[in-house]
């Protein structure tokens, strides 16, 4: 298998006042090398939780990982020493583009200082292991070259001046370009971008996403991209994975995802997109309470094809086409395409 990332059977809960919220239920998820995968689903379905689990930054005091594995580039991240994860996985092999470029910069340091701190620990030239005692001058200047070059590549004007500015002196679009540059600087194998453009003006969202896609493709970097927006996901992703209420339900190449959805939830989701033919059609019913989720396929209370089997047992993934996997007992047969 040439997967870069393979999440298998991952089960995560959060301790809350009203009990354990079962936020991820035996989730399977994979990303191939150089592949751009969109993780889509309604708000609260667990996209961010999955992304943070891969990064290893779930809130330590409330999150409980009770089963599963996260295999990345031949290592099981859940079995690794936490220090090792921080030094050579996070920020090195896997980098992160945050949702909100406004608040993700520290307001009291210049942009240059913040990038420098990142490079001090995470430059491709940094010696692996426990991290730097000192930031050697030779590496500092080669790192600076690297930074300036990349800032030009992400089309930021006058990079030298930019480095001397404070975050609040820079526009949101430019800040997100900076974030993308910072995600690329350590030359990672995987970039996790959790709704990287929701905080931005609609007019620049597309530019930023195209930039991310182009750079990732040029460098052969894989991307995990989460979004609510099926349209943008289609434009930039090679493959899509859909989640519903903490369960992965379907994963397919972007084309067949739209033309031949198989899981009933995906079908209904696509049908609910506003279209010229039928206007907006919502899915009846509502998202379950994750502290007491329905057994079996969590979509069954809202599924018109649900059977007794669906109510008892969660279906295993089954191949339903080329590179197309669905977890549905009664998959749709090519109907329902909008």
């Amino acid at each position, binding site marked *: 298998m040439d997967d870069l990332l393979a999440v298998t059977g991952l089960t995560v809960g959060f301790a809350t006042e009203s009990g354990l919220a079962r936020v991820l239920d035996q989730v399977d998820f994979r990303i191939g090398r150089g592949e751009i995968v969109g993780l889509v689903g309604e708000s609260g379905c667990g996209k961010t939780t999955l992304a*943070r689990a891969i*990064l290893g*930054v779930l809130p330590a005091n409330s999150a409980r990982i009770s089963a599963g594995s996260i295999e990345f580039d031949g290592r099981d991240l859940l079995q690794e020493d936490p220090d090792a*994860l*921080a*030094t050579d*996985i*996070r*920020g*090195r092999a896997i*980098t*992160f583009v*945050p949702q*909100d470029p406004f*608040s*993700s*910069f*520290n*307001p*009291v*340091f*210049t942009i240059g200082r913040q990038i420098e*701190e*990142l490079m001090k*620990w*995470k430059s491709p030239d940094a010696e692996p292991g426990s*991290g730097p005692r000192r930031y050697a001058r030779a590496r500092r200047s080669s790192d600076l070259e690297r930074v300036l070059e990349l800032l030009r590549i992400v089309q930021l004007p006058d990079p030298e001046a930019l480095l001397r*500015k*404070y975050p*609040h*002196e820079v526009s949101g679009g430019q800040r997100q370009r900076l974030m993308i540059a*910072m995600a690329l600087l350590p030359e990672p194998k995987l970039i996790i971008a959790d709704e990287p453009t929701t905080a931005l003006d609609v007019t620049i969202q597309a530019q930023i996403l195209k930039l991310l896609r182009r750079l990732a493709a040029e460098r052969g970097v894989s991307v995990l991209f989460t979004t609510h927006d099926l349209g943008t996901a289609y434009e930039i992703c090679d493959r899509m994975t859909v989640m519903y209420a903490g369960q992965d339900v379907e994963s397919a190449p972007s084309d067949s995802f739209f033309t031949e959805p198989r899981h009933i939830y995906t079908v209904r989701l696509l049908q609910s997109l506003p279209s010229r033919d039928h206007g907006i059609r919502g899915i009846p019913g509502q998202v379950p309470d994750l502290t007491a989720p329905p057994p079996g396929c969590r979509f069954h209370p809202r599924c018109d094809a649900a059977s007794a089997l669906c109510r008892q047992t969660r279906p295993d993934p089954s191949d339903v086409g080329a590179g197309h996997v669905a977890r549905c007992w009664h998959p749709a047969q090519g109907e329902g395409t909008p």
Partner: protein
Amino acid sequence: MTGAAPRGRAGTLQPGLEMRALVLTVNRLVWFVPTLLGLLVITFTISHIIPADPIAFIAGDNATAEQIAALKAKFGVDKPVPVQLWNYILGVAQGDFGISLYTQRPIAEDLIARLPATLELAFVAVILSGVIGIPLGVLAAVRRNSWLDHALRVFTVSGLAIAAFWFAILLQLLFAMKLGWTPLQGRVDGWGPDPVTGFYIVDSVLAGDLETLADVIGHMVLPAVTLSFPAMATIMRFTRAGVLDAINSNYVDYQLAMGVPRRVVVWRYVLRNALIGTVTQVGLVFGNLIANAVVVEAVFDWPGLGLYAVNSILQSDYNGIMGFTLIMGTVFIIVNLLVDISHGLIDPRETG
């Protein structure tokens, strides 16, 4: 809290740090004089609301009408009140606060002679509060809800509720009277070091006189601890809140998600952000400190401005009280000016 000038926006200009500090300083300095002038008018009005007759008090019961008239002329109270105010303003502008009804000496000289004692005490207390309060505040935040955090919470709540003069008396009772570990009161035994700066710690170091230094520090301990307790509580509280805010912020989340080591993030970045809030509070803390100094000096017989004020109160010396109020106001305004400037320097979002 300050006699602050309104904040302007720097608009689209993005002045450099020095420029920003300059704008701020000028802005504040412009208001410095009017604020002081206003304070002067207020204190003057206060001390003339009631036609108390301190002259009769000084002159005694047997004074003749001529003697009283002469005294009145000497202290300038024979003229109408607005004229007195005008003369007082003119005098203050030239550094003349009038003559103390009590010591019969120029008040400006009295005050200047006593200022170093108060400032030295206040500085030591501020430093003590910061050096202990900031790290403890960080610890409380980092170990939030641990027993340490709870213990420190009790400490801060107490520090903010305790009457400084009472705490001073308790410390005296225990450490000076019962245990005899520290002197009961005063600033030094004997004459003290040769005056250079007026700060005894500095002066005895300059003179290379370790014995005096030890004695000075011994006298300093109880008053400094008394003064720093509430200040420390405030600093700790704001540091803790600031650190928590920063730890829960997106930028810390980002740095941790990018694998920057936690200790680096906390001690190098979070602390810096948290301290912005703390520094803003130093002005407030300093104000409280000065206020408490009045009573703490009275308890420890510390020869500073506070003790002078207390003596002026006892002697109904309203010139002395006015001088004291003005000089306290000046010190307080200057401290707040410095706080604002340093705030502008460490927080780049603060412009103009």
